């Protein structure tokens, strides 16, 4: 929801380049998940006019939505897609700006790490106990939920890459 910004970015080192490619690849998968939602929901809507159904549309489309969200996180962060209150941040210069950047990236890192920890526990539990979704295909819950862990891990990597690069230039 922000005006597009110029995309010329300084080189931030090997780790950042690697994370960049990883985030991009996940972002593309997120895009494909959205295409899949579009197709599956349209097919379901048409089928329903003929009293027919795929029966799993709600469930699968929900998983795809989660896939799009989590796999897109790191890429969105890189591209400056998240909004913020710019009041002070945009006016700050010099060392105040740098201090704000450290504050932002470190707290975001702590938050992401805690989420990743909680979600990993959740998925490992689902795997060990073999919990299933209440649906006709009895999806093992750990399979769709793994995208949470994957997406948050890439997001964490991105934040780490910025810290390694001393948060010189974050979107």
């Amino acid at each position, binding site marked *: *929801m*922000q*005006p597009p910004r110029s995309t010329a970015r300084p080189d931030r080192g090997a780790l950042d380049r690697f994370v960049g490619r990883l985030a991009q690849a996940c*972002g593309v998968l*997120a*895009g494909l998940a*959205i*295409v899949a*939602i*579009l197709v599956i*929901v*349209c097919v*379901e*809507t048409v089928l*329903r*006019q003929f009293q027919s159904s795929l029966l799993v549309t*709600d469930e699968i*489309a*929900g*998983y795809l*939505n*989660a896939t*799009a*969200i*989590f796999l*897109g*996180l790191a*890429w*969105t*962060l890189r*591209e400056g*897609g*998240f*909004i*913020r*209150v*710019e*009041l*002070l*941040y*945009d006016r*700050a210069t010099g060392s105040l700006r740098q201090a*704000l950047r450290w*504050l*932002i990236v470190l*707290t*975001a890192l*702590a*938050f992401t790490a*805690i*989420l990743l*920890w*909680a*979600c990993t*526990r*959740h998925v490992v539990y689902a795997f060990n106990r073999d919990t299933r979704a209440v649906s006709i295909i009895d999806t093992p819950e750990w399979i*769709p*939920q793994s995208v*949470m862990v994957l997406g948050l891990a890439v997001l964490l990597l991105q934040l780490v890459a910025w810290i390694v690069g001393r948060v010189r230039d974050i979107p």
Partner: protein
Amino acid sequence: MNLELLTLILVASLAIMLMAGQWTAFALGICGVLVLYLSKGVLGLTALSSVVWNNANSYILIAVPMFLLMGEIILRSGVSGYFYRGVVVLLGRLPGGLLHANIASCAVFSAVSGSSVATAATVGTVAIPEMLKRGYEPRTVFGSLAAGGTLGILIPPSIIMVLYGALVEESIARLFMAGVLPGLLMAGIFMIFIAILLFLKPHYAPSRDAAGGKPAAGDVLHVFPVLGLLVVVLGSIYSGIATPTEASALGAAGAIVLAIGYGSFTRRIFSDSLMATVKTTCMVALIIIGAQILSTALTYSGVSRTVSEWIMGMGLGKWEFFIALVILYIVLGCFVDGISMIYMTLPVLLPVVKAFGFDLIWFGVILTVLIELGQITPPVGLNLFTIHAISGGAKFTEVAMGSLPYVGLMLLVILLLCFWPDIALWLPTTMRG
């Protein structure tokens, strides 16, 4: 830890995070995690995973990426530009015609795109250079675009209403229908305002003779494809043929068909639209996740109940509470975006709103108008930023001043909705089922 101290820590940490420029979604989540940890320890943090998963794995919220995709495709394929030209032919002959064309095309296009910012940007990019060249008064131009762009979240399909409906568990189809008449009313009031303004200050717009370059009358046909798409999407919801989620997917498919029809659907445009959709979807989804973490923390720690009881204990009357609420949202809207505003406040305020007996559909419409208002109030108003960015060197204050009258007009709409709630509530009652 006692609740007063916890509430204080919460408010202080939220203020610091937001002011420091933390991404809003992260700021909400960080404060949620902090409160959860302080009140329930590590055990409390294990609840996070369910909050995160349940807010992403949602069939209702699928409407968000689908409506976004619909808007992006219409926008990037240039279909919206054709549409604006068509509206200009229709309304260009009125005095100050292009100003009316701004409002009307913003109303329809923003409904299709569901995004205020995209609307203001699309119509603005075409309209601003053209209108300034013809001698329209700049502030009036900026105001009409910034305010017109906000109409989209009130006129369905509206992403804000999807999110509100999902949160308070009201029918999104009914919310959509409740937004139609207030949206048209507001567009009408904007146009009446422009007419009165031009009557008092005729020099704000060029005289009809100077309006220059006659657009081809055939351009008027370009109004129909976009309007048709809107009718299909809303019609299928209204008649009950499709749920809002299904209608959103049909809308996105319809947008692709329109773009193909205009011969401007390329792989490039599709992939750009798709990636822009991913970006906005992630932004919206993470705000929801962050805010839901915060709201879970508020519930677990008891802060939520304490604040609700405190408000109830103040002995306010129904409408005194309502006025306080409106003021709260106006102030919040000066700083925070609409989605964060809803998800931050409603978990605490909803029980009170219900206790006072407000209709939740009606309240959703009011809330949406208040969010529109927040988008054109400085210092942080998304639409003001957008128009400022594409204005070609105007001062920010010029844009803000031009938008100021519309703040008053929006409050007028809220007042009308208080006196005649049926403006919002009548259309949903005529729906099937």
